[in-house]
C-alpha cells in the first residue's frame, strides 16, 4: 500500500472534521459534591461518598459550574436551553467510580452556536457549534508493571481526586470545505477555545495539564465530479482520535489521520469507524475500540438531579460578563497600543496580554507596561518557573511603580529594587520605597556635598573638566552614584559637577 502525505491526501479527497473539546472548570469544588477541585493533592484525599459512588450518596449541582457552563455557551454564541437536564452515560472502566458518568444527552444546556476562528494570515473561518454540555471528569489510572503503559501492565492503581471535577464538552458540527487548511483550522479552533476559557476565567486552559483536551474526528470523501455539488457527496467513515493534548498535536493528528485514511482508500480498503489513540512520541495513531461494539451507553435521565432552568434574567446578566473575542481584542489592542506584530506575538505567547491591559488600565503607558511584564517580570517568572500571572504582584502595583519613576521619585535601577521588595511581599511599591529608603536623593545640598567630596578625591578630573574635557565628568557622576547607592538623579549630578567646575554643559 502506498503511503500518502497529507498534501497528497488533500489533493485526492475532500476532508471533513469535527472536534470535541473538554474544558476542566476551575471551580473551587467538584461538579456534584463539595470536595476540592485542585490539581496535585495526595491521591484519594479529595473524595467523598458522592464522587466515590458509594451507595445512597446524592449529587447536588454546583451553581458556579452551571454559571461557568452558561457563560462559555454564550461566548460560543450558543442558545441557552430554558430547561436542560442531566443523563447517565453507562459504561465500565476503573476510573469511573459509579460505573456511569453524569453527563447531558438530549437536553444539553448550550446548543447551536458559532465561533469565529482567526488563522495566522488573518483569514476568518466560522465554525458551527453543535452543543456545549456539562459533565464530570473521571479519576486517574496508573498502570503498574510492563512498560508503564496499559499494554502488558500487571495491574492498575486508581486515584479518584479528579473524579467528579466539572467539565464542559464542546462539540462542533462537521466542518467542511477547508481543504489543505483543515489541520490549521483544527488547531486554530482549539487555540481559540483555550483563549476564550482563559478570558472568561473559567479554566486555567492548560493543555499540558489536561485542563483543555481535544478529540479529533476526521473523515475523507471523494471530491465532487463536474456538475456535482461537494455538499451532495456523502461523508466517509470517520476516526475519532482521543486525547490530543497540545495545539501542535492537533495539527499533527489531522495530518496523520488524513494520510492514513487516504492511503487505505486509494488501495481500495475501507476506513473503519473507530476511536484511535494518539501517540505523542511518534506523532501517530493506533486503533482503540471499534465504535459499533462499544458505543451503547444506554443514556437515561439522571433521577438524582433536577432540571437546570436558568432564568432569562440571569442568562442576560451573564451575557453582560462575556469578554471580547480574544482575536478581535488582540487586533484592537495592537492598534491602540501601537505595538508591532512581533511585539504583540511575544506578548500573547508570554500570556502577558491581560496583565499589560490591566496595567495600562491602572494608568501606565502601554510601552512602560510592556517593558515591565516582558522584561524584568518575565525574567523573574522564568527563574521561578511560574507563569507571569502567578507572580505575587498586581498590574496595579506595576502601574504604581512606573508612576514613581515618572514622578522622578525613583530611577529605573531603584525601581527594580523596589519591585524585588514587592515580589518579596514587603508591601506596595511606595511602601517598599519608603521602608528600604530607595528614594532618589533630590536634595541639592546632599548632592552638592557628595559632588564636592568626589571632586576632592579626584583633583585631576576637575582639571580635565575645566580644560574642556566635559566627558571626564562621567567618573565623578559614577562616584556620586556609588556614594548615594544609586539614589541620585544622574542628570542633576552632572549639572552640579559642571557648575562646580565653572563650565557650562
Amino acid at each position, binding site marked *: 500500500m502506498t503511503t500518502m502525505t497529507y498534501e497528497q491526501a488533500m489533493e485526492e479527497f475532500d476532508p471533513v472534521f469535527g472536534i470535541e473539546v473538554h474544558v476542566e472548570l476551575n471551580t473551587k469544588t467538584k461538579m456534584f459534591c463539595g*470536595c476540592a477541585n485542585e490539581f496535585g493533592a495526595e491521591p484519594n484525599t479529595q473524595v467523598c461518598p458522592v464522587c466515590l459512588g458509594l451507595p445512597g450518596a446524592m449529587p447536588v449541582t454546583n451553581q458556579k459550574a452551571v454559571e461557568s457552563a452558561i457563560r462559555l455557551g454564550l461566548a460560543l454564541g450558543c442558545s441557552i436551553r430554558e430547561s436542560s437536564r442531566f443523563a447517565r452515560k453507562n459504561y465500565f472502566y476503573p476510573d469511573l467510580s459509579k460505573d456511569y458518568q453524569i453527563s447531558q444527552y438530549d437536553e444539553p444546556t448550550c446548543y447551536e452556536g458559532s465561533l469565529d476562528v482567526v488563522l495566522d494570515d488573518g483569514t476568518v473561518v466560522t465554525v458551527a457549534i453543535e452543543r456545549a454540555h456539562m459533565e464530570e471528569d473521571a479519576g486517574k489510572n496508573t498502570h503498574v508493571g510492563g512498560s508503564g503503559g496499559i499494554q502488558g*501492565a500487571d495491574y492498575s*492503581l*486508581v486515584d479518584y481526586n479528579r473524579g467528579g471535577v466539572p467539565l464542559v464538552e464542546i462539540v462542533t458540527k462537521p466542518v467542511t470545505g477547508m481543504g489543505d487548511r483543515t489541520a490549521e483550522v483544527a488547531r486554530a479552533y482549539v487555540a481559540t477555545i483555550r483563549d476564550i476559557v482563559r478570558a472568561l476565567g473559567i479554566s486555567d486552559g492548560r493543555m499540558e495539564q489536561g485542563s483543555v483536551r481535544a478529540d479529533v474526528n476526521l473523515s475523507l470523501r471523494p471530491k465532487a465530479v463536474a456538475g456535482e455539488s461537494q455538499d451532495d457527496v456523502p461523508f466517509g467513515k470517520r476516526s475519532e482520535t482521543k486525547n490530543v493534548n497540545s495545539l501542535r498535536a492537533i495539527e499533527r493528528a489531522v495530518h496523520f489521520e488524513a494520510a492514513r485514511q487516504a492511503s487505505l482508500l486509494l488501495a481500495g480498503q475501507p476506513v473503519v469507524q473507530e*476511536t484511535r489513540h494518539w501517540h505523542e512520541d511518534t506523532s501517530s495513531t493506533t486503533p482503540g475500540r471499534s465504535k459499533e461494539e462499544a458505543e451503547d451507553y444506554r443514556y437515561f435521565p439522571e433521577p438524582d438531579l433536577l432540571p437546570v432552568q436558568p432564568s432569562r434574567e440571569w442568562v442576560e446578566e451573564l451575557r453582560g460578563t462575556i469578554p471580547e473575542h480574544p482575536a478581535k481584542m488582540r487586533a484592537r489592542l495592537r492598534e491602540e497600543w501601537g505595538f508591532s506584530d512581533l511585539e504583540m506575538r511575544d506578548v500573547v505567547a508570554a500570556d502577558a496580554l491581560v496583565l499589560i491591559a490591566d496595567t495600562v488600565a491602572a494608568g501606565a503607558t502601554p510601552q512602560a507596561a510592556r517593558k515591565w511584564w516582558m522584561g524584568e517580570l518575565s525574567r523573574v517568572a522564568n527563574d521561578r518557573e511560574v507563569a507571569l500571572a502567578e507572580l505575587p504582584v498586581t498590574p496595579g502595583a506595576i502601574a504604581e511603580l512606573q508612576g514613581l519613576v515618572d514622578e522622578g521619585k525613583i530611577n529605573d535601577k531603584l525601581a527594580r529594587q523596589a519591585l524585588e521588595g514587592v515580589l518579596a511581599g514587603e508591601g506596595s511599591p511606595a511602601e517598599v520605597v519608603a521602608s528600604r529608603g530607595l528614594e532618589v536623593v533630590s536634595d541639592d545640598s546632599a548632592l552638592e556635598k557628595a559632588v564636592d567630596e568626589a571632586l576632592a578625591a579626584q583633583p585631576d578630573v576637575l582639571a580635565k573638566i575645566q580644560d574642556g574635557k566635559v566627558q571626564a565628568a562621567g567618573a565623578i557622576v559614577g562616584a556620586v552614584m556609588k556614594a548615594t547607592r544609586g539614589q541620585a538623579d544622574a542628570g542633576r549630578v552632572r549639572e552640579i559637577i559642571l557648575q562646580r567646575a565653572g563650565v557650562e554643559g
Partner: protein
Amino acid sequence: MSSLERSDVARLAALARIDMTDADLDRLSGQLAVIVDAVAKVAEVAGEDVPATSHPIPMANIHREDVVRPSFAQDDALAAAPEAEDGRFRVPQILGEEA
C-alpha cells in the same frame, strides 16, 4: 407487540456485565417483555401535548454554593477497597480497552 427479543436481553446482560445462563435468558426475556409492553401501553395514553417527564415533582434549580466541604481522609477512602497500594485503589489488569 413485544419489542424485546431474547437477543436483546443477552446483549443488555453483556453490557451490564451480568453472566446469564440460557435458562436465565429464557425466563427474563419473558418477564422483561411484560414490563416493556406495560410501559408501551402507558406511552400510548400520553398525547402529543404531554412532555416527557423525568421527575414526578416539578422542581428545578436545586444547586449548591461552590464551597469546599471536608473530604475523606485517604485511609477512610480506601477502607473498603478490596486492595489498595500507594494511596490508590488497586484494580485488576485493564485489557482490550483504551488507556
